[in-house]
């Protein structure tokens, strides 16, 4: 038995060096050299400052938490107070939980009012449900188009221009069939800001 424990200890150390030190180190070195920008987090800059990551959603609300009408709004987020990069996660509410149903009912109402669409208008489901990560960088095209008029009005831009920006930041299915068609909210909003 004592020999087994000794071998076990030596094997633990040997395999920690191999799989826990050398392996991640090699991957990190190659990442830094070959995929520098991506390995660092696909950071996005505006006016010379890093403003976020192209892969992570962020809030477009004022200090009081009210959504800013001149920006496209991301999905509801369960990460901390919303899009908290240190608290990724979902609401974990069950499909029949009254808390979920109340929240969705209230979001549907708020979405219609905020975007000035009629009471009967169906609201795209992604706009009223929280994502799995709480950091979802995307919304659906349907959601973006419903927000376009509000954004255009608040920025005094022509609606066709805003719609064409949505098209520019729409990512189709990869290889034609993988995943879903989505719009990157941060990149779209940054492009809007560049329109002046």
């Amino acid at each position: 038995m004592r020999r087994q424990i000794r071998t076990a200890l030596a094997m633990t150390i040997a395999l920690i060096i191999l799989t826990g030190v050398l392996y991640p180190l090699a991957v990190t070195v190659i990442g830094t050299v070959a995929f520098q920008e991506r390995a660092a987090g696909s950071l996005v800059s505006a006016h010379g400052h890093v403003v976020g990551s192209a892969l992570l959603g962020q809030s477009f609300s004022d200090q009081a938490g009210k959504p800013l009408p001149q920006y496209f709004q991301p999905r509801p987020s369960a990460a901390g107070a919303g899009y908290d990069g240190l608290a990724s996660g979902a609401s974990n509410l069950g499909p029949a939980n009254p808390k979920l149903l109340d929240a969705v009912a209230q979001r549907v109402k708020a979405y219609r009012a905020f975007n000035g669409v009629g009471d009967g208008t169906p609201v795209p489901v992604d706009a009223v449900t929280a994502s799995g990560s709480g950091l979802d960088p995307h919304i659906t095209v349907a959601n973006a188009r419903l927000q376009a008029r509000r954004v255009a009005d608040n920025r005094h831009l022509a609606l066709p221009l805003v719609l064409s920006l949505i098209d520019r930041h729409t990512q189709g299915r990869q290889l034609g069939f993988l995943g879903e068609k989505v719009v990157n909210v941060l990149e779209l909003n940054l492009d809007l800001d560049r329109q002046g």
Partner: protein
Amino acid sequence: MTAAGWAQFAAVIVLILVSTPVLGAYLAKVYGDHRAPGDRVFLPVERLIYRATGVNETGEQRWDVYALSLLAFSFVSVLVLYAQIRLQGHLPFNPDHLKGVTPALSFNTAVSFLTNTNWQNYSGESTMSHLTQMTGLAFHNFVSAAAGAAVAVALIRGLVRNKTGTLGNFWVDLTRTCTRVLLPMSFAFALVLMSQGVIQNVHATRTVATVAGSQQSIPGGPIASQEAIKEIGQNGGGPYNANSAHPFENPNPITNVLQIWLLLAIPFALTFAFGRMAKDQGQGWAVFAAMFVLWLVMTSLIMPLETRGSPKLGALGASQQVTATQSGGNMEGKEARFGAAGCGLFASSTTGTSTGAVNCAHDSLTPLGGAVPLVNIMLGEVSPGGTGSGLYGMLVFALMSVFIAGLMVGRTPEYLGKKVQSAEMKLVVLYILFVPVVILGFAGASLLLKHALSSLGNPGPHGLSEVTYAFTSQANNNGSAFGGLSGNTLWYNTTGAVAMLVGRFFLMIPVLAIAGSLGRKQAVPASAGTFPTATPLFTALLTSVVLIVVGLTYFPVVSLGPVVEHLAGHF
């Protein structure tokens, strides 16, 4: 469901059908007695390890010595991990100055990674330092998978060798699985992941001023290296709380499909290696087919259930229809880039294996959609299971199947020519009984304890599903969760750790004992009365045994949880 959704499903099927024979043939050589590809590269590294650790490369072990080595290694490595988690505040590579973790949570986490479960009662981004992630958790991701493979290979040797007392050498099987299978695959896949945007650095968390003028924290970490082995070894423990839903872990649909394929690849391939080592490829395909059919059926159920959406959300004015401009479906807890289809495909695969990574919140699946991962785990994760644990689980059910077939015609059952007698059957029954006793016992006790009930995140039948899922996932070493349950309490940390230990070692040791007992026997030639086990009929019998013998154990609790929720909630 859309055509693209089905095409995505078909793509994973094609990848599996291609990789199973290719990877399987390679695995058979790795665990065989002759030269293997890459010897020139791998042998020097392995010999260095054997020399440093005092392992006799050619020394064969009896089943009990093999088991003892497994236990010694598990005991020492779990202590090292526990110490690391407790002491991480005093160790380097901790740029965010995270403190050591409490004793109960450290115990649960150490056991969780030791047993290949990766149940997480914590959020990675705010709890574990980069050093803990790399030298603690990722190391266990490798060796827990390798130990599982070792046990499966020992069982194969017991089945195919004749009149021998020995089953190979645990240390050699452990080392070779790491150096020749897990490390090369992980390395290659980590590079692919980085090319798609998965991060890999040892930065501290970076705080940036956002476009709207507030602040956001952007975490760092050695994620790509972790992510690769997380799927390849069916570990599933995410460096971030949101796991494979997090864009830094799983940035786009290509990485999503690759992750799904990788978590299925080795478990399916091991069936081919089994056929190769048994010198009867049909035996391998028969086992493969049983696993494959279960996975296929469960996946075909959950994908449409989720893309169809939730009638409750529809009634509130949310549009869940599939149109040209939106993917629709039940989107609570799901990422827009994967959609409901990409979530269902992942959920069924991660629970048919022992992975437990998630790319959407299982707690928010529709009632019957959520029943799919729950039932997948309850069946013992044999569709296709974890590295090694899937194959040895299915082979134990194969012994059960030939036994039942033997009872029907009144003959002593045989499997691969080995007579299956009372000694083996007793161990098979132990294997099958341990896990349900632990799951139903602990889940039942939790329902009677007030403080345990206060951890539930959802009311009604969904709460029952939540607590059942927690113990089912831990006892079967899966690690996925109905995440609403707050598990970081003394009760759940401790009972969960016990469930994980039972689900790992109380299954592995009977398996090794069965292997030892079968290895001592001489295979008898097949006669007219032998029940052939390389046929579709056997696959059908095996699948039915899994569904009836195991599935029925949980029928009452599945009825009271997801089924009641579905019917009472008018879904």
